[in-house]
């Protein structure tokens, strides 16, 4: 008797090599709740081992049987927890089962897919769907950008001094009010032989991406800072447009800008719309609690923002290379328009049943 029971005590908490021993141990246990525990402990240990491997990122090393058993073992643990709560006063057991169920829950209902398959779904419809999901906020952002450009133009037209306060020093080297037509033309054309453009593109991307992330992230303050940022950035554009218009170079400037600008401005439009979307859903949450509305909008906007970063990579590449290589206004306009049509088509015409 003595030897048998100490043997059991050693075996508790360890692996059972044979099911028959489990049964023996279970029959020896005095308490009904201990018998319950001993009968199921092997399952819990197995789940524990699977979870440990998965948490360490070694999912590939798992056998197919283990992977298939995971959901069933998870439900076993969950139901064991329910039973243990009602029948057992072993606090250690209940808290172990709580932890085990929670860990399994995190994995069974974790981020659904690998980053790669998420990315495929993202390109194959998820992105354009969430862009369309922004709805009216796209129009609001567009209206703000147009208004910002107009304001910039009108301000500088009424008083050229505004130019200096709108355009930061780094931008406006020789492009200032009163610059001659040749100087301005020189900034637009004839830079093919410039080198170091790839570095320029990379830093441009980094900078633009940071600005657009800011544009989105400021949305939490009910979208107001986002709107201001949109207006401010496009006012700069309006001022530049006015400058080149003064020397009759408006179309050339638009061409120079459009080659990457259609992509970049579109990306900023999306980032702004995403920010406004979050802000608006917090200000007007509708039937949902504010927090839930913010969370739903935030997730949609995050998907848009991932796309924005991608668009900015493309814009930076266009700006760094294509603008220097394509040196005439009509062909620049063609590239720019092509990109615009491409993006618009992708976002609004490309509909596939996602989810």
């Amino acid at each position, binding site marked *: 008797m003595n030897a048998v029971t*100490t043997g059991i005590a050693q075996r508790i908490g360890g692996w059972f090599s044979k099911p028959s021993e489990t049964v023996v141990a279970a029959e020896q246990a*005095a308490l009904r709740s201990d018998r319950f525990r001993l009968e199921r402990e092997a399952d819990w240990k197995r789940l524990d081992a699977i979870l440990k491997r998965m948490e360490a990122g070694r999912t590939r090393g798992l056998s197919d049987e283990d992977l298939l058993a995971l959901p069933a073992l998870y439900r076993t643990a969950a139901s064991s927890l329910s039973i243990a709560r009602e029948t057992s006063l072993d*606090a250690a057991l209940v808290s172990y089962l709580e932890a085990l*169920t929670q860990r399994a829950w995190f994995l069974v209902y974790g981020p*659904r897919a690998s980053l790669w398959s998420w990315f495929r779904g993202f390109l194959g419809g998820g992105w354009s769907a969430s862009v369309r999901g922004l709805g009216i906020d796209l129009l609001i952002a567009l209206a703000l950008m147009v208004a910002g450009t107009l304001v910039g133009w009108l301000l500088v037209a009424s008083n050229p001094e505004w130019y200096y306060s709108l355009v930061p020093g780094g931008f406006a080297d020789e492009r200032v009010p009163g610059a001659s037509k040749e100087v301005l033309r020189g900034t637009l054309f004839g830079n093919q032989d410039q080198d170091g453009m790839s*570095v320029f593109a990379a830093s441009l991307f980094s900078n633009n*991406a940071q600005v657009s992330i800011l544009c989105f992230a400021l949305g*939490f303050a009910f979208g107001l800072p986002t709107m201001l940022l949109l207006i401010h950035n496009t006012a700069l554009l309006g001022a530049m447009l006015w400058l080149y218009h003064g020397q009759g170079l408006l179309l050339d400037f638009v061409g120079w800008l459009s080659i990457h600008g259609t992509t970049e401005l579109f990306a900023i439009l999306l980032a702004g719309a995403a920010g406004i979307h979050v802000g608006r859903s917090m200000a007007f949450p509708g039937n949902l609690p504010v927090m839930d509305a913010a969370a739903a909008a*935030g997730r949609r906007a995050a998907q848009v923002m991932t796309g924005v970063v991608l668009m900015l990579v493309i814009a930076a590449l266009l700006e760094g290379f294509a603008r220097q290589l394509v040196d005439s206004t009509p062909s620049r306009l063609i590239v720019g328009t092509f990109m615009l049509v491409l993006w618009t088509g992708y976002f609004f015409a490309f509909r596939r049943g996602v989810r």
Partner: protein
Amino acid sequence: MAFALKIPFRRRGETQTGPIRSDGDKRRRMVVSPEGVPIPFMLASRGSRAAALFLDLLMIFGAIIGSTLILAWIADGIGFDFDKEDGPAGRAMQALLIVWVVAMFLFRNAWFLFFELGPRGATPGKRICGIRVAARARGVNGGRLTTEAVIARNLVRDIELFMPLIFFISASVEGGDTEMAGWAGLGWFLIFALFPFFNRDRLRCGDMIAGTWVVEAPKTKLETALSVGEAARGRSQATGAQYKFSDADLAIYGEYELQVLERVLRENRADGMRDVTEAICRKIDWSAGAGDERAFLEAYYAQLRARLETGMRFGKRKADKHSGGA
């Protein structure tokens, strides 16, 4: 005050004020899993979150320094010359510079993203502090942590954390008013750093927008059962004495005391067990011996648990020694 005056008479043992909520109670959230089982989530303490963030920043900083050094070392091997841009060395330099710019961008934005999307849902700093990211419950129902949520919570981190820094640096580079910029940056930073103090679930802005929260990662160890040993059957292995308690001996304690007893047994400290043994013996009117406390307590634990669990099966629970019932 008015409330206290209203009920001057009350049953002895009933405390008038509600139970004092400990820190653990305040942080506990019961969330119902999709299978309908309530599972407790412990919100991470603000201290451990701050520590995790600090560790992560330290690691990011180290990674940035390290990668910069490596790239500089490679560049040194190529030979610094930005002037000869057409030569192969110049092109290699350009490539290195691009790698550097992209790496900086990734360290700043993708560190948190990459790790929080993993199976542990935690960055290295969070793992060290024993916390992880989880989807916030909507009402009582737990949700699924999605990729988009993790992206959203980390995009917002950018303005919470890095914005004031950039703000300050750009002001000092452009020769602006650094003092003003410093104060503004500090104010900005404080608004976001103190945000978790002003809501119940300790969310920072990013958590709020993404629908996530940060919880303690569940512990993993299963303690051995206390009630299956020889001593639990009532026989001491040290002295061979038999401990058998009568119904009246067991009826005085409830579930709360059982759990205290379990904790004492698991801690297994001699003086703690002696104190508890004496307290129990006083209560049930046994004369307390010495030297065999553990066997005595294990026997009492097993028999008390058996009694209480039997009561449980019949729907009669006894929460603690003050309550009636089984």
